[in-house]
């Protein structure tokens, strides 16, 4: 095959992956939704299902950790912002997905297809249940019937099975080596990183303290009050500050160049000169060096 032919095949492969992202769930489900948007209810239900699995509401933690640990991501609408964030800011790194193409809906469809694959394998530990997604919307005005109607198989799984379905995507890998040695890879785990990693970044950051958390934080003031951020209440993060008086000193030894002046505490006094924390940093030593004895612990191509 010519190099041009191989490149064409690679391009076709990558484009096909994008097409797969966009359409596979739709084909599998036999459903055609309108133009995707963060407000699309199927996508919203699916994203809420992700957030519920990753950062759930946890009444069981009230006695163990305190009442502030009960609310979860859906109580502050992380899923809705995740939709805005993924569509407006983030390209998932695949060719032909440009800023003007929504990716929320394709991701939701991919998660449904992963759920179906999990079920087909018999790897789900709990039976899907159409009432589960209804619970994600407790306290909202979205009707239960409407949720049951649009919820896909992913949202009907139990929380652990949803995570297992996300892991199904981790297994999707493709690597193609070109005749000239270059190679191109694709990894379905990217979807999981988006729907597992990003909710954590959003939830535990300062995000829900902004006056308008439905849009990006740029230009918004922030109260920097731990009480205003649910994630901070649950981590004990005290908010951003200009500084702390928390200096303990500088690592060093009395007879070395690192560390000087008074010793505040000793770190190690087993063998050799005691290592401690000193009042001043001292300096690193501009040492002579000899690499002749270098041994490669794990040689390339070695065992």
């Amino acid at each position, binding site marked *: 095959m010519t190099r041009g032919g191989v490149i064409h095949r*690679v*391009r076709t492969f990558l484009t096909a992956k994008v097409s797969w992202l966009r359409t596979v769930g739709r084909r599998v489900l036999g459903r055609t939704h309108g133009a995707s948007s963060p407000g699309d209810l199927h996508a919203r239900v699916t994203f809420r299902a992700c957030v519920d699995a*990753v*950062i759930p509401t*946890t009444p069981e*933690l009230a006695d*163990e950790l305190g009442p502030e*640990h009960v609310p979860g991501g859906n109580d502050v609408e992380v899923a809705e912002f995740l939709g805005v964030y993924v569509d407006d*800011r983030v390209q998932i*790194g695949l*060719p*032909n997905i*440009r800023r003007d193409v929504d990716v929320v809906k394709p991701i939701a469809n991919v998660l449904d297809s992963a759920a179906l694959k999990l079920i087909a394998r018999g790897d789900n530990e709990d039976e899907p249940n159409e009432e589960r997604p209804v619970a994600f919307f407790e306290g909202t005005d979205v009707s239960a019937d409407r949720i049951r109607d649009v919820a896909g198989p992913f949202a009907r799984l139990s929380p652990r099975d949803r*995570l297992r379905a996300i*892991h199904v995507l*981790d297994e999707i890998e493709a690597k193609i080596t070109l005749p000239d*040695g*270059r*190679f*191109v890879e694709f*990894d379905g*785990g990217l979807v*999981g*990183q988006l729907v597992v*990693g990003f909710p*954590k970044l959003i939830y*535990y*950051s*300062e995000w829900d303290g902004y006056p308008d958390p439905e849009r990006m934080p740029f230009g918004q003031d922030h109260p920097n009050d731990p009480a205003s951020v649910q*994630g901070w209440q649950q*981590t*004990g993060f*005290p908010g*951003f*500050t*200009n*500084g*702390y*008086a*928390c*200096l*303990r000193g*500088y690592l*060093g030894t009395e007879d070395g160049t*690192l560390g000087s002046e008074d010793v505040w505490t000793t770190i*190690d006094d087993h063998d*050799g000169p005691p*290592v401690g924390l000193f009042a001043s*940093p001292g*300096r*690193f*030593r501009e*040492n*002579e060096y*000899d690499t002749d004895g270098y041994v490669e*612990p*794990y040689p*390339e*191509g*070695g065992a």
Partner: protein
Amino acid sequence: MVDPEYDVVVVGAGGDGPVAAWKLAEAGLSVLILEAGPFHGNEKWPDPHGDPGAEASSDVDDLSGELLDEQFTTREFEMVNQLFFGPADEDRGIWTRKFPGDGAILQCAGVGGTTLHYTGCHPRAYPAAIDEQGHWPIDYADLLPYYRDVEELCDVQPAPVTAKEELFFRGAAAAGWELIDEMNVTSPGYRPQPNAIRRPDQRLHVDGDYDGEFTYPDVTGHTLGLGEIAGNPHPRGAPFEEKAKRASNVSFVPAAMRTGNVTVRPNAFAVDVTTETPLGDTPTATGVTFRDTWSGATTTVEAGVVVLAAGAIETPRLWLNADLPDEEWVGRGLTIHFGDNVMGLWDADDLETTLGKPTVDQHEGQNIAARFDYPGLGMLQTVGTTPGVGAILGFGASASGFAFQHDTEDAPWDTMGRLAGPDLKRLLSDYRRMLPVLVVSDDRPLKRNGVTVQNGAEDEHGPIPLVNYTPSEADRKRRDELAEIAAEILREAGASHVHRADSPPTALHLHSTMRMGKVVDEACEAYAVDRLFVADHSALANGVGGPNPTNTGQALAARTAERIVERHF
């Protein structure tokens, strides 16, 4: 105002380009630096993400600490998104790349480049990585005078110790490792980070009862409130050049502008390198074409020498998208310090015994101030993170699924993989009793790993970078051994729970895609194009052994600038 012609055009105002510009300008050459992102802390751009502002800046008096205070809020979610590699216009998303595997690329756009996010860590390469691994055509000794230049201008010094570093050092010592006090590291051990961050005021000692403001001029130097990853404007109130973290925008950019020979042109994405082939053989670089990221207008500037310093992704991308010779190693040999995240959690009573208080408080101090070196394997470093970044780095991404899917009975860690559900909330409720350790391995340059482009996968600047990376079996073993050492150190420090992320390939450090000896010669001039030089981490012949690469990239850029003057002016 950008002139039609300069002695040298430098593509990229990241960590390394301004170093080359500074040296070239000190030699009396006229230099234009093109930067794809915005210019923060400059009075020519009072609203750099909301308004196009002026065209260029060449006066050091344009720099404003007050504006930097305003623009670098230190709020993690806002700043991570603000600085991430994308156009200045905040209404637009980031620039598209295909990530390596299921990982990510963490780079910034803007004057200062990824040093806007970096944590100030400025160790040298391991000498053996240069002299013994067979990748470099020059010796480690060749870099020493340039290291010293860079370290002096950046105020590199041993990092201060707060509770989190003390805990790590106690664990490393208890595990039997030795303290290293050397600049040129040849054996394993622990040491404070050589950080390009000015030391904190001595009055901030924990026993000092300081109750004043943490702003300039009440205090100078670092204020021990993290902030490096979010840009770090501390101490607030300080003039631009008195900011504690010596990112290249604070160190080398002012030094370069002060010569009077340098113009910085932000919001300028280079899309082509122009050449002439007067003798019909090797082409000669004659200039650069760039696109204004706000207006879309393109401009071509002529140059006696062109220096590519756009980083290990964009420099090969520009070469591949320009009409330059088809060179075998362009874009190949990518190293990313294939890494991992291991963290310890402590019981309050144990911390009280060890540290005299019930918390680690990773949000205090400098982000990264303690390290462990192991030439041949790589390094470990403690990482104080704010909770959002910490949650995604430590628990949000894994190459091995979720923690509940792993049996860790015989492993050195209690849990491994992504955490989710009540388990995640329980662990993060201990955020203040948690210490993350970043595993950074000495991965090696493999021809299969790197940057390619394909027509059809394009953005407004041409075909996008397709970044592919799969570590070798030996790379995995180096990383695994380092992760085990990290777990042992945390256990010896008294951790009651150790978690390993098994992170996917996440590119924090990117190098060796335009390698010296393969694409560029010993002066970093391209073999295939005269008067075209590379002065960024892509010219590094390997991953420098695992230490943070900024110092080596900058030292090499300083050396390259001298070679440019010697050869062409």
